[in-house]
């Protein structure tokens, strides 16, 4: 019985993770900041690796680097210029991702909270 439940949970989690592929939009808020920054991602999952692009909107997109998926957690990076963004996201439901973001430039390092929802109809 326990094995059956564990198998069900594993299958459910992997199904959630597989759902990462698609378009996502939302925002992040930097710790100590008082406004949200828009975000838009196109994610493609292949096994345990994650690729695609992300940026502030659909027109300005940067390639995803070092993307990986483990269970219902995704980790990837984006370099926009002086700043590098490292995302650690957890899939909370089929249509919702949330987690932490580390922003780093030469001399500076900050953290932020990210929240994304699946873009419907894309």
């Amino acid at each position, binding site marked *: 019985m326990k094995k059956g439940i564990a198998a069900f949970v594993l299958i459910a989690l992997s199904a959630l993770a597989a759902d990462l592929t698609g378009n996502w939009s939302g925002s992040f808020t930097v*710790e*100590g*900041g*008082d*406004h949200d920054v828009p975000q838009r991602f196109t994610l493609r999952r292949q096994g345990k690796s994650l690729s695609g692009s992300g*940026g502030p909107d659909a*027109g*300005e*997109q*940067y*390639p995803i*680097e070092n993307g990986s998926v483990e269970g219902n957690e995704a980790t990837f*990076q984006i*370099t*926009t*210029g*002086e*700043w*590098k963004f490292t995302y650690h996201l957890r899939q909370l439901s089929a249509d919702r991702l949330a987690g932490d973001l580390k922003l*780093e*430039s*030469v*001399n*500076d*390092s900050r953290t932020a909270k990210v929240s994304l929802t699946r873009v419907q109809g894309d």
Partner: protein
Amino acid sequence: MRRLVLNLHLAIALLAGAFIVVLGATGSILAFEPQLDRLLHRDVSYVKPGVRVLSLVEIGDAVARKYPGEPVVAYLRSDAADLPNRVILSRGIVSVNQYTGEILGVRTRGQTFLGVVRALHVRLAAGEAGRLVLKWAADGLLFLLISGLYLWWPAKRMRIRGSMGSPKFWFDLHSAVGIFSFLPLLALAASGTILAFEDQLASVLGKPPDSHSVQVKPPQVGSAPRPNATEITPDEAVAIARRELPDALPYRVQMPGYGGLYVIALEYMDHRIAGDRNSVSIDPWSGRIVAAKLAAGLGFQQRFMTANQAIHTGSILGTASRIAAALTGLLVPVQAVSGVVLWLRRRRTWQPT
């Protein structure tokens, strides 16, 4: 009235004094942040000026030989003959001698001493709570300056008399430093308060359509790659941008792999305010300019905020105003110490014997 103002001056100084000292001391360091950064990383910050400057393609090739397979995110052109060009990669910022192609080294991203100083100055390195505390500390400094001027006015002390350490010495020191630092400190405190409440001000004044500059050509998405077509080079993109703004110097070239278009940032060296707020976006396949943002198109609100920032950082009049900003910041701890000494002596005289 005078007693009330004095008591308020004391109370606010005791409440906000420590935070104001942090603002002053860290602000003094930040006034020369680029220079200090170069001093702390001398090995990657200077080159011997040569005769011929390499093209961006040649600089990119030199970087590719050192870091094969790593795409260039952006080129940062040197703004002085003895400073190197820099090339942004995912791994960090590579310094390149633009005369020889020598790779001087790479700066990786992450927190450093200057980053900590900046975090202290902006948010006490303590997130939203620290930012809020500093906002109100800056307002406290404004009150201290106005009330200090009111208290100074009757005696108008501008010279330090009395022997070192005597009550007269401390009083004169507080008065003289206060009046000589009044105007620059008022400018720094007022501009800092405007920066701290920038978002609230924007919501009152109405946010401009573009927070950076004004589009003079409608933005268009870059065209898709065509079969057998090749992208224009970064040097060709710079040449196209310079034809659009012939008197401006390019200082940054964002590569199309990162954002979809070549984005060339250009600066008018003789414009102190917003001279660097120009950019030209170019389709990498056709070489067509798809958007241009010009500083000349900035509205009043954006010019005001840019000028305010230049006042606060001390960059508005170049090195002279940076030195003035740094010295003024250093006078804040002097005022704090002399103020505390005066307050302690005042308390002692009130103690019943």
